[in-house]
C-alpha cells in the first residue's frame, strides 16, 4: 500500500513543483504577448494564433519547465492520494498573485488577498486530513 501521510519531503516536492508550475504559467502568458490578443474568433485565427505563440521562445521555455514539473509531480503522486496532492498544490494561488504583481505588473485587490487566505486555510485542512487517515490506519 501507499503511504498517505504528507511528509516534510513531499511538502518540499510540492513547493518545488508549485514554483516551477508558476514559472510555466508566466512563460505561457509571456508567449501569448506576440499575437493579436483576444482576436481568436474562428478556426483560421485560431491556427494563426497557435503558430505565432508556438514560435515564441517563452513557450519553449515553458514546455521545458513542464517536463521538470512532470518528473516531480510523478514522484509526488507515487506517494500520496490525488485528492490530497492537487488541493495542496493550490498554494500556487499565493505565488501567482505575487508573480503577477512583480513581473507582469497586474493589480491585486484586498478581496483577492481574502480569497488567498481561504485557499491557504483549505490547503492546511487537506494536509491534516491526510495525517488523520494515517493515524487511524
Amino acid at each position: 500500500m501507499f503511504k498517505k501521510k504528507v511528509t516534510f519531503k513531499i511538502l518540499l516536492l510540492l513547493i518545488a513543483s508549485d514554483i516551477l508550475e508558476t514559472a510555466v504559467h508566466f512563460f505561457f502568458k509571456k508567449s501569448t504577448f506576440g499575437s493579436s490578443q483576444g482576436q481568436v474568433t474562428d478556426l483560421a485565427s485560431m491556427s494563426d494564433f497557435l503558430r505565432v505563440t508556438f514560435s515564441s521562445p517563452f513557450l519553449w521555455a515553458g514546455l521545458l519547465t513542464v517536463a521538470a514539473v512532470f518528473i516531480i509531480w510523478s514522484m509526488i503522486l507515487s506517494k500520496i492520494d490525488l485528492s490530497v496532492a492537487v488541493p495542496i498544490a493550490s498554494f500556487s494561488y499565493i505565488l501567482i498573485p505575487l508573480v503577477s504583481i512583480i513581473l507582469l505588473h497586474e493589480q491585486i485587490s484586498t478581496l483577492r488577498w481574502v480569497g488567498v487566505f481561504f485557499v491557504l486555510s483549505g490547503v492546511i485542512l487537506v494536509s491534516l486530513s491526510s495525517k488523520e487517515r494515517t493515524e487511524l490506519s
Partner: protein
Amino acid sequence: MKQGLLLVLSLIALTSMCDTISQLFLKSTIDSLNFTATHNIIKIFKFIFKLISKPRLWVGFSFSLVSLCVWLVVLSKTDLNFAFSADSMHYIFIALASRFVLKEKMGSRRWLGTGLIVVGIVFVSLS
C-alpha cells in the same frame, strides 16, 4: 464583454476537465507501477522511463495537449489572475474523480478543505 466572459468560462471548464482526465490517467498509471520512494536518481529516472513507456499515460497526455491549447487561448483573452481563479472548478472535478474513479477515501476534513479552496478562489475571481 458578458458574452466574452461566458466563452472564457466555458473554455476554462473545458481545459479543467481535460486536465482532470489526464491526471486520472497519470495517477492510475503510477499506481500500477508500485514505485517505492528512493533518493537514487538513477532509480527515479528508471521509474520515469517506465512510466512514459506506458501507452495509458499517453492517452492522458493527449488530454493534456488539448488542455494546453485551450489554456493558451484563455490566457490570450484574459489576465493571468482571472484565468487562474476561474480554474477553481478544477478542484471539484479532481475531488469527485478521485472519490468515484480512483476510489480514494475522502474524509470530512478533506471535503471541507477542498471546499474552502474553491470558495477562496471564487473570492479571488470576484475581485
